[in-house]
């Protein structure tokens, strides 16, 4: 267990170089901490985010620093947690509701979709709902059918919500800070398997706007769009494909609502080919949306059909052999992208 932390001992007071390498989880903690210091209306609620610091250490040190009024452990009641978040947001607070495992957001979906997403619009702009809902999606170590889902597209589907899916520590911090200054309901969806991934994060203040994609790798033969954990797999596949003579351009939208479709279309105009790699299912998912967008707005840039490289349509089986087979592996990505060029 982690040693007891004293109030005030926080992560970024150490002597570090202007850009240091920290973990995805730490980046999130820093963002929340900085914003909670800046904005006293922020209240953080969730299961296990108090003294425990969060199941993924995603709230480490916050309870010690800000106290139990502003950092509250909740009972296992995602629907009420979220409803309370909505009410508090309408009443002038800026709540963070941590659902922890994204799968359990389903308990809260009625509150998110029927209440949170509609209130600003239906009240004709009179009420704002500055609510941040935080959760970790995706599979890790055979997490199984109840702890592996990636249905962020359900929420991308609903007008009135913003959805972020960061893939690196740098993106986590920048986007989370932006989210905590946004007056709309935001779903901030991290990935369980990325919490320990390390990456460079600048020391000073910075934010990343929503709706701005990142070109992770420049290429000329095919555009591959991916989010979250899939970004690193696609980059790995791109290295292999490069050796086989296929030059891959990798785009990470970072937020899916709003989505930087211009970046995607610009890239497809250059390469002529598009594949979307998603840990979620193909049917009615993010990949389907990107394919439809490009077909609708840039059909004549396509030299080949759009390819969706997604989870196979089965529940998340437990056994490692099935688990890795069902989800897009580097090898499958290489094979499917290659097939776009021949056979």
């Amino acid at each position, binding site marked *: 267990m982690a040693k007891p932390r004293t109030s005030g001992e926080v992560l970024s007071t150490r002597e570090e170089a202007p850009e240091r390498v920290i973990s995805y989880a730490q980046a999130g903690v820093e963002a929340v901490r900085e914003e909670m210091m800046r904005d006293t*209306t922020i*209240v953080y609620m969730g299961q296990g985010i108090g003294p425990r610091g969060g199941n993924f250490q995603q709230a480490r040190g916050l309870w010690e620093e800000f106290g139990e*009024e*502003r950092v*509250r452990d*909740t*009972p296992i*009641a995602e*629907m*009420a*947690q*979220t*409803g*309370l*978040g*909505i*009410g*508090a*947001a*309408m*009443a*002038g*607070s800026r*709540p963070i509701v941590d659902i922890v495992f994204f799968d359990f957001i389903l308990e809260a979906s*009625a*509150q998110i979709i*029927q*209440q949170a997403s*509609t*209130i*600003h*619009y*239906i*009240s*004709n*702009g*009179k*009420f*704002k709902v500055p609510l941040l809902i935080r959760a970790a999606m995706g599979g890790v170590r055979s997490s199984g059918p109840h702890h592996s889902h990636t249905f962020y597209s359900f929420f991308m589907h609903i*007008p*009135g919500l*913003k959805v972020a899916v960061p893939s690196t520590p740098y993106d986590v911090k920048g986007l989370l800070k932006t989210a905590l200054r946004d*007056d*709309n309901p935001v779903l901030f969806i991290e990935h369980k398997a990325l919490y320990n991934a390390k990456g460079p994060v600048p020391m000073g203040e910075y934010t990343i706007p929503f709706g701005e994609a990142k070109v992770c790798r420049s290429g000329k033969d095919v555009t591959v769009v991916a989010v979250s954990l899939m970004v690193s797999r696609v980059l790995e596949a791109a290295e292999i494909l490069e050796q086989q003579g296929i030059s891959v351009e990798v785009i990470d939208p970072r937020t899916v609502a709003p989505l930087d479709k211009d970046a995607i279309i610009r890239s497809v105009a250059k390469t002529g080919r598009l594949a979307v790699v998603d840990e979620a299912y193909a049917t009615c998912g993010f990949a389907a949306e990107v394919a439809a967008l490009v077909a609708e707005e840039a059909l004549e840039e396509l030299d080949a059909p759009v390819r969706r490289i997604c989870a196979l349509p089965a529940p998340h089986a437990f056994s490692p052999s099935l688990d890795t087979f069902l989800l897009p592996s580097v090898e499958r990505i290489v094979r499917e992208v290659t097939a776009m060029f021949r056979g």
Partner: protein
Amino acid sequence: MKIAQEQVLSLYRTMTLIREFEVKVREVFRSGAMPGFTHLYVGEEAVAAGVCAHLRREDYVTSTHRGHGHALAKGLAPREVMAELLGKVGGSCGGRGGSMHLYDPAAGFLGTNGVVAANIPIAAGAALSAKVRKSGQIAVCFFGDGAVNNGAFHESLNVAATWNLPVVFVCENNLYATEMPFHLAAKNATVASRAAAYRMPGVEVGGNDVLAVYEKAGEAVERARCGEGPTLIEMLTYRWFGHHEGDPGTAYRSKEEIEKWKKRDPIKALRERAIDFQWATVGEFEKTDKEVQELIKDAVEFAGNSPLPDPGTALHAVLSS
């Protein structure tokens, strides 16, 4: 119980406003001029009036699908509510919400709601915000007997009690959830008794006696404001009409039962008692009646003249910028 005379007339006024408004809504709806559907509050006026009499403008209320009464009692302008029911620009929400989605931040009104029990955690959340901000505000949550078997009810009451939130949970037990009698939906067909499970005070009140409502609601509001946490109040009452306009309400309720409850008309009861005890004169009541009529007339005229929203605005304000 000591009650100021002005308060009696005020209660009467609120109840009459609600009654006359709802009767007018029924008339307008039946004429075919009102889109959507509507759920009338006639018969339950004492609850809204008695509870909201204790609330400040900045206190919060969340309401149900049967919420015109709560809206008017909390201070929304009748003309704005009527216009909203007709989907007009002059409505509380510019016509975007209608009957089940009435919002008014100026009146602390966090919305009527089309989803049973969904408003309960929202009220608790508003109370949480008030507590953390130490603002002295409280929240009141209205819901029916149909909501108390729903997960939202249990989760919200548990958290509210555990966190000692300044919220008053008011259940309007009118014995039927749509067409389902309470005793067929729950073995424990009572509400106040459930409070014990969450270790919060539970109070049962004859919901058609506005003074009893006023008294008990006052105690609960006081408790919340003093930081003593939430209360669950069960108001025993009855709706005269069906669940929604279009439902006669007689397929699942006997004529005798309906008549019995109509005789317990809360407005008539208050008026008679007030006159008996000389809290107010007939003249004063009649004056109030006239004022209410004027308000209703104005509401109908205003709503009728207000235009429908321009489709060009349909995509505005999906997000706050």
